């Protein structure tokens, strides 16, 4: 098992009536009314400290991600964060998991190939290269890419990126969307032929087809938990089998919200309002924004129109206990959390690369550190050995880190590191 700490970096102090007063958390939230640049500077530093702390506590990887013009997660360039983390984790056996820089919004997309190569060099070959399609809110609404061209641009940019890392000769690229007379990256990644590639998705069938075809790790970034992901992930494994891939669990990643405390009751006391803040405010987005016409290809459009995903409930109607009971969030004592992670997520979905969202909604800095430490000390050691006896190789993890099973170093993290 490889277990990474994931951080969105939401704005943690949205007003209590945010979701009734404002249209959306994306694109429209008014900066001048809601935010303060000095405070945001503190957020960035907290986020870096929290991810660094996770690395020092013994998480296998630390994840950043790219989003635009919103209060839900505002690292517009994950590589700025990743470069700091790559430097500060020198000597640690931790992967720099960029989940990642968005290809269709980077023009030309070799900018991503170049920056990832930098990160791989700085980190000494510890980069996991997430190559996301990007959400329609980011790519279509914020960055103006035509929905009909979103996936086409992605596929072209993906092919260009992979070739740019590997080509031995300078080459011209005469594409539909990108034209470059000379491609010759300086630097190239340490990892050869290229860093491990993860493709995040949110349940689109065409994305996991793409991931299987390209033999990369498909990461389902879900906020609804493993139970609601079960049939979708079964579909993924069926496609993998049909296309002749083995059932290596490391072909799949899954994101799970996790909150741990001494007891289940204490977890409710500590986390309830932050979990509700996340689902009620951070995910406050008008439905049609998730899929502007043209964003889905025709086959997917036909499939989802014939069989619409029926949301069993509106998350805004749910409270903490509902989120926990339904598995949206796995929260409680260390025993509760590790049992549920093992049963519902790891075994339930057959997943080898687990990402834990360790900072949820409005969780303050100290509570995030507490969550991270408890996870590292009391949960991770019980999960880390899963899959070992089956002998799978995690081809989607930096080669230099594959063999390490970094022990949690709790003796010193409780001291100065905080």
């Amino acid at each position, binding site marked *: 098992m490889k277990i990474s700490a994931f951080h969105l970096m939401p704005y943690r102090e949205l007003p209590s009536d945010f979701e009734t007063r404002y249209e959306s958390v994306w694109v429209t939230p008014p900066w001048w009314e809601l935010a303060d640049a000095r405070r945001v500077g503190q957020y960035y530093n907290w986020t870096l400290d929290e991810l660094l702390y996770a690395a020092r506590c013994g998480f296998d990887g630390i994840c950043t991600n790219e989003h635009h013009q919103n209060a839900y997660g505002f690292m517009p360039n994950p590589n700025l964060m990743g470069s700091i983390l790559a430097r500060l984790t020198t000597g640690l056996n931790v992967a720099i998991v960029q989940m990642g820089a968005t290809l269709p919004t980077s023009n030309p997309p070799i900018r991503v190939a170049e920056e990832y190569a930098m990160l791989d060099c700085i980190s000494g070959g510890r980069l996991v290269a997430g190559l996301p399609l990007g959400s329609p809110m980011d790519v279509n609404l914020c960055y103006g890419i035509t*929905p009909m061209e979103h996936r086409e641009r992605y596929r072209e940019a993906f092919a260009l990126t992979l070739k740019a890392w590997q080509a031995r000769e300078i080459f011209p690229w005469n594409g539909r969307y990108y034209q470059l007379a000379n491609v010759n990256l300086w630097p190239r990644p340490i990892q050869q032929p290229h860093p491990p590639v993860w493709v995040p998705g949110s349940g689109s069938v065409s994305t996991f087809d793409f991931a299987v075809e390209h033999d990369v790790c498909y990461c389902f970034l879900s906020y609804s938990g493993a139970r609601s992901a079960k049939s979708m992930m079964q579909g993924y494994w069926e496609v993998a089998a049909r296309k002749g891939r083995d059932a290596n669990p490391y072909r799949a990643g899954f994101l799970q919200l996790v909150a741990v405390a001494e007891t289940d009751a204490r977890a409710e006391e500590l986390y309830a309002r932050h979990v509700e803040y996340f689902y009620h405010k951070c995910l406050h987005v008008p439905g*049609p924004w998730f899929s*502007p016409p*043209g964003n889905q290809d*025709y086959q997917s459009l036909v499939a989802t129109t014939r069989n619409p995903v029926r949301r069993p409930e509106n998350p805004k109607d749910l409270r903490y206990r509902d989120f926990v009971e339904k598995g949206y969030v796995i929260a409680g004592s260390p025993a509760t959390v590790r049992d549920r992670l093992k049963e519902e997520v790891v075994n339930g979905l057959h997943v080898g690369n687990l990402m834990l969202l360790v900072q949820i909604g409005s969780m303050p800095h100290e509570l995030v550190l507490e969550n991270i430490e408890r996870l590292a000390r009391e949960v991770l050691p019980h999960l880390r050995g899963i899959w070992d006896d089956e002998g799978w190789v995690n081809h989607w993890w930096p080669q230099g880190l594959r063999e390490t099973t970094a022990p949690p170093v709790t003796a010193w993290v409780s001291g100065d590191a905080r």
Partner: protein
Amino acid sequence: MRVLSKGDGPPLVFFHGPWGLQWDPFLDELAGSFTVHAPEHPGTSPGRPDDIYQLDGLWDLVLCYDELLEGLGLESAAFVGHSFGAMVACEVAAAYPGRARRLALIDPLGLWREDAPIVNWMLLNPRDLPGHIFRDPDGDAARRMFAPAQDPEAVAMARVRLVWAVGASGKFLWPLPDKGLKKRIHRVTAPTLLVWGKEDRLVPPIYGEEFARRLPGARVEIVDQAGHAPHLEHPEAVARLVRDFLGQ
């Protein structure tokens, strides 16, 4: 490209709006005086959704319509267009001034004013769409466009057709419906009629003035009791306006 044709008389090419082509009472009215050719925008013909990917941009689309006119054997014709289709008609008339004999544009897209932003109809909740297209979202015109079918498969496929048509038009309109027409519109030589629904909630009637300012000699007709699709809410009256203008 598939073209639906009907009627007798001089040729008229109808460029449909972003919601796809439906043969409607307005086209029937025109077919009484003209040979109406109504092409389906690339990608919107049944069974050929991926045709849209053959076009890289607006220039390809304009060439595509030029070739279509060639294929139909029309050296020139009256152009009538609605919304996105009116923008395309205007673009073709600007690129090939000789192709358009006369131009009737119904609530066209294609220009942008910061003081009167156009609603992004591609992001509207489907249930709010009739209220943005029509003055009366419960009227006959809205019912014709959004007729509820009984068969779930028919309902699903009607929805697919609508969404795909909007997506295919969005290839040439996203994220703002200004793709440079303002730089080319002076090339239009065809006499032009601009028809606008007085209560257009997508493209405010001030855009009628904007088009008229850039098309010397163009005339603006405002249609009362109509939204963004006055030809669907008042087919006879708008057809009369268009017919009278084209017949001059």
